[in-house]
């Protein structure tokens, strides 16, 4: 599809004190494309998307959205751009019910600034139904009582309910059963076909190859390879994940904290 990326990171760096989590990472996703982000534990995948989500704003580098340089310094900034993220830890409120979680921060209001519970409940049910999430008994049950997979389904539903342009999923199938994994992978593909930019983080290369158009490999906070999914194989990707060449950039750690 469109050749210019919808979301692009150029030379993004991020450190947590002495830990250099990301070193000059370039990353781009185009509209209508599923971009897989893979790498070993601690490679920096979650950190990268937290930079995009405004949770840990990047120390250095440039974020571009639809060919403009943007500053994402808070979650509001990224959702204003139409970027929706399902985080690895899901970040749901246990004491709130499913509807309340799905609309948190973006509640619909009726007259006199009251919450429009009916409209929110209806929209939540429709979204869950469209994802074929049939295992929750009630959308009014608190998230605390859901199984791990159900929680993950709710988190995914929460992200796709909005008219977004980029959807990022950080290991969205890690806790899911066979059928639910199927649903999420289908969803990922459908979102891509709808013209959204989709980023999928996963350790399951089988799943990755099934849905991804391109594969970006991070290792020790650096991008070590990028593949066209059609032109590579699992072995090549595994090699990049475990032994990809990491270029040493002297002085980065001190420079990035500036």
């Amino acid at each position, binding site marked *: 599809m469109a050749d210019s990326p919808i979301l692009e990171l150029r030379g993004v760096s991020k450190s947590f004190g002495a830990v250099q989590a990301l070193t000059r990472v370039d990353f781009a996703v185009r509209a209508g494309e599923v971009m897989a982000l893979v790498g070993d534990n601690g490679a920096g995948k979650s950190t990268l998307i937290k930079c995009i989500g405004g949770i840990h704003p990047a120390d250095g580098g440039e974020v571009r959205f639809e060919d403009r340089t943007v500053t994402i310094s808070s979650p509001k900034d990224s959702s204003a751009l139409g970027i929706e993220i399902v985080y690895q830890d899901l970040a749901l409120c246990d004491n709130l019910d499913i509807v309340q979680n799905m609309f948190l921060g973006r509640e619909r209001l009726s007259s006199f600034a009251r919450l429009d519970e009916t409209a929110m*409940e209806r929209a939540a049910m429709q979204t869950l139904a469209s994802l074929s999430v049939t295992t929750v008994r009630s959308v009014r049950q608190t998230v605390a009582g859901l199984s791990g997979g159900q929680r993950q389904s709710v988190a995914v539903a929460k992200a796709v309910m909005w008219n977004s342009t980029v959807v990022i999923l950080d290991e969205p199938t890690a806790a899911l059963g066979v059928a639910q994994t199927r649903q999420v992978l289908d969803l990922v593909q459908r979102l891509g076909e709808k013209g959204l930019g989709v980023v999928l983080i996963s350790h399951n290369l089988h799943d990755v190859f099934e849905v991804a158009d391109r594969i970006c490999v991070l290792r020790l906070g650096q991008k070590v390879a990028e593949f066209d999914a059609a032109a590579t194989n699992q072995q090549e990707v595994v090699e990049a994940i475990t032994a990809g060449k990491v270029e040493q950039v002297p002085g980065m750690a001190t420079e990035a904290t500036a």
Partner: protein
Amino acid sequence: MSATAPKPAPAVEAPAASAGASERRRRAVRLATDSTALIFVALLVLLAIFSALKPGAFATVNNLRNISIAAAPLLVLGVGMTFVIITAGIDLSVGSVLVFSGVIAVKVMTALGNSGWGVVVVGTVAAMLTGLAWGLVNGALIAKARIPALIVTLGTLGAGLGGAQLITGGVNLRGVPRELVTVVGVGRLFGVVPWLVAVALVVTVVGAVALRMTRFGRYTFAIGSNAEAARRVGINVDRHLIKVYALSGMLAGLAGMISLARFTNTTIAGHSTDNLQAIAAVVIGGTSLFGGVGTILGTVVGVFIPAVLQNGFVILRVQPFWQEVAVGVVLIAAVYVDQLKRRARDRL
């Protein structure tokens, strides 16, 4: 909540939409096991026992009025405290802020000549703004400086009371407008409801609506439940916490004015346990000290249980010290029930 609104026709393909009837049944079950419902029944039982034992003295309109008047300031404090505790916070400073705000109100009203409704209104605004200011200090130190709420409000508890004593030289200030005492203090709305109770009722209803039906309330629950999740959806957690403590402070200021209307002086020494009483009421009412759970209705019941016990024991000529023992037992039981519920939940 949405229970009363007619359900829209569910989307044809929505399997979750069949939840309607079973959901209603589930709500009924939840109500039966709900701690607020339990504690409400406990209050009714207490009322029934005292009424049966001393119908002529206890179950009179006049006596119930007295109970309500005694409960009014605590109810106002309790509403603010409910919001605070739902965020998983605590506000120990409310009693001191109440006293300090009352002192400022008396100073302001005295300076203005101490008579007329205009002065009463200005005094009330002064008391509430003073309380608000203390609440903002609490909130800013907790949210921005990240000092634990227990420590911050313990500090402002001392500072507020000390400040009040510095301003007054340790002597209670007297002299409040006559209107405040004769109308607000002892008068009744429509000749039935004491004004002080009416004020507390309005605060309670507004608080309950704000907690259940507005974004403000929803964010309060969200922050107490998972502050990081709230932050990730773009809720300004720090600012919301500051608002919640400001609300608690402002209501403490209003309670200071209620106290002035009732006692006609600043009662500096009389509020040292208000904070603990308010916290006890909120917790007895089913609000969890761990945050994310709570209701204003529960707090109302939690305020009335100690008030009814106190009154009933006096009428029965039981040593009033038993009231404190009984409230202590109820408080511990309430927290134990909360723990049991949390444990049952975590086992899922």
